[in-house]
């Protein structure tokens, strides 16, 4: 018996003119529709309870979000913690990161910080101290504070933007670096602008278009 159904074969059918890109956006020749990945900072205020950190980090790995750093710490309210995440994603991906984070029940609020937000990271750098004078000259250059020293080593604390820390590590490397330990980025909005507060009404649930927030996020 004949198997299958009747009807015009695929090549006999009309085909539509349009197409979508991989992000599901209709390709409009008038508008540039592809979104390139960009690095940005997302801040989340969360309930300070066991399991939140693993919920958040699990979410990122499970959904294949590209994450550069994730830090968590207490806030002035002992029931709340702040999580700061540096992600590198195209606009639709950043949008998804925010929305998926908001879906986690212990997450109170989420926002992407403006490019001018304050960003800081701390690093401990342990170097060989064979030439103490040169080492401390470099430390001065980067406002690094000595935390520990021994006959063979000196350890400095450096605080600042990611670029500053990278530059410091690079410069210290001439003496021989023994170990580096970095905290990852923490950040806060400037002035009266709220980072990610308890004000839940401020969350745009149905933002139509991706933000104009497309300039690269430089660290200050």
């Amino acid at each position, binding site marked *: 018996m004949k198997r299958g159904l009747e009807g015009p074969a695929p090549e006999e059918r009309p085909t539509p003119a349009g197409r*979508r890109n991989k992000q599901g956006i209709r390709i409009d020749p008038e508008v540039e529709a592809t979104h390139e990945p960009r690095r940005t900072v997302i801040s989340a205020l969360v309930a300070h309870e066991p399991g939140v950190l693993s919920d958040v980090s699990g979410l990122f790995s499970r959904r294949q979000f590209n994450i550069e750093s994730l830090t968590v710490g207490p806030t002035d309210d002992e029931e709340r913690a702040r999580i700061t995440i540096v992600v590198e994603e195209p606009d639709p991906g950043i949008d998804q990161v925010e929305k998926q984070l908001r*879906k986690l029940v212990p997450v109170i609020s989420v926002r992407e910080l403006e490019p001018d937000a304050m960003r800081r990271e701390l690093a401990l750098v342990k170097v060989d101290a064979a030439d103490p004078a040169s080492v401390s000259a470099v430390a001065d250059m980067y406002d690094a504070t000595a935390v520990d020293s021994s006959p063979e080593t000196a350890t400095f604390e450096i605080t600042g933007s990611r670029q500053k820390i990278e530059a410091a590590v690079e410069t210290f490397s001439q003496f021989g670096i023994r170990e580096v330990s970095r905290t990852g980025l923490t950040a806060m909005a400037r002035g009266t602008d709220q980072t990610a507060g308890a004000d839940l009404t401020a969350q745009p649930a149905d*933002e139509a278009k991706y933000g104009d927030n497309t300039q690269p996020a430089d660290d200050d």
Partner: protein
Amino acid sequence: MSERAAKVTPTDDEQTDEQITDSAAPDAATEPDSAAETESETTAEPVTSGAEAVVRALENAGVEYAFGVQGGAIMPVYDVLYDSDIRHVTMAHEQGAAHAADAYGIVSGEPGVCLATSGPGATNLVTGIADADMDSDPMLALTGQVPTEFVGNDAFQETDTTGVTTPITKDNTFASDADHVGSDVTEAFALAREGRPGPTLVDLPKDVTNGETDREPDEPKTPDTYHVQERADSEIVAAAAERIENADRPVMLLGGGVIKGEASEACREFAIEHEIPVITTMPGLGAFPEDHELSLEMAGMHGTGYANMAITHCDTLIGIGTRFDDRLTGGIETFAPDAEVIHVDIDPAEISKNIHADYPLVGDAETVVEQLAAAVDESPAATKWRAQCQQWKSDYSMAYEAPEDAPVQPEFVVEALDEATSDRAIVTTGVGQHQMWAAQYWTYTEPRTWVSSHGLGTMGYGLPAAIGARLAADDDQEVICVDGDGSFLMTLQGLSVAVRENLDITVAVLNNEYIGMVRQWQDAFFEGRHAASDYNWMPEFDKLAEAFGACGFRIDDYDDVADTIEEALAYDGPSVIDVHIDPDANVYPMVPSGGDNGQFALTEDQL
């Protein structure tokens, strides 16, 4: 047809409510009716333990049934359930408990409850929890856990249940003290139901359930951090309404969210008022009557040709309660490529996740459809488009050949079952070809009558789902499990439960002695190499059914189909029809994974 229809199984009268409650065996001791009644009338005693608080929380939430399996770590909860009015159905396997609870949730709209002990009990639930998560079905799982002081020590039957289930639950909680455990449960119950439904889990360490407390659980309430937006932004509604008014080729795409959001009626009225053709996703089956002329039925991988043509060529796609899953969209690049998309969903994260929404409408499906209905003043001028859709309906008819001399065609069996049952009959399925035939050839007209495993695609879902559906359904709704031979084999131990509880369900096994869906793909994409897809041998399911105490039937010929179905339906209790179908039957139309919906294949050589 089998000659051994007469069976020795418990009749209705012999089975009392009390037997269903807590009975681990059919002959379990039963209390007289009056005892249960007096108890429910008197005001409840104050709680004294964590376990009592857990059960009180369920009672306060209005839970009528729970499905589960006993075990060490959950025993304190069972001990309290023993005296509760909640009817506990002892399942043969925890996976079945989770599927039964899931189906109960689909049919009733209220979270289904399942229970399991720690370790293997909890891990056996995992497939069912993941299934509920993918399909956004409301479900509450309660798992026993080793006493808190042993947690982390690899104690006997210890599994990090909250760790294992974090990615597959809407939310989960490790109960940390007896005073809070009742409220942990009510909160989890509320979360499972509110907003976009989903499974929640509370892990219950034995010291917590055994612990003393006099704290009554709070009323079911979602946590303060959980927010659901009910109404969509009115400006976007206005813009979407204008788009609909000006559409040349509009289509409504109704997903499972329409059913869960009780928006079927509102969608039906909107579509009919504005004469907009309607497509459903697979979970959306029943959201719109498939016998209505505006219905184009289901789109996607095994959707109808006309639905796939319409979705490919529309210029305005009104997607409601759908997550634009890849089985629906096929390749993203060719999905509704000319359409401006209006997307209604209660979960903001679904908006523009897979398909960019030009008009994102976050809110409750029914509320937003009513907002749209109020905002659309003029129906779109789409006479030509509707005519085109009708033309496609005849060009790509689902009519199949069923020659008398060939083996029984599965489509015929599905249609015969549909014919023999009422409009409100409930269909559950396994996963595979039979599931697709059940989706394609049964005419769904009512919401909550299609109960299947969509997102996870779990073989073995059908029978336990029929058990849960049966207990949630009205007495006049037939419950039919259209199963595959392979799928049935995975969970058929559930027959013991159906017999013990005397549940009136009919299982029709579309037996092709194949892992049929895999065989179809092998024929199309693996040069017909039937690696591990040919069973060659199958038990005789009718006899197996009888060994369980159910009523067994067998169909080999067309002549047997109608009569046997009638007999099986007439039997008051579980029956199994082993339907020997054409082993070479395939499911069409078919869009290969990632393919272009408009280029669906009608025969194998078009793939």
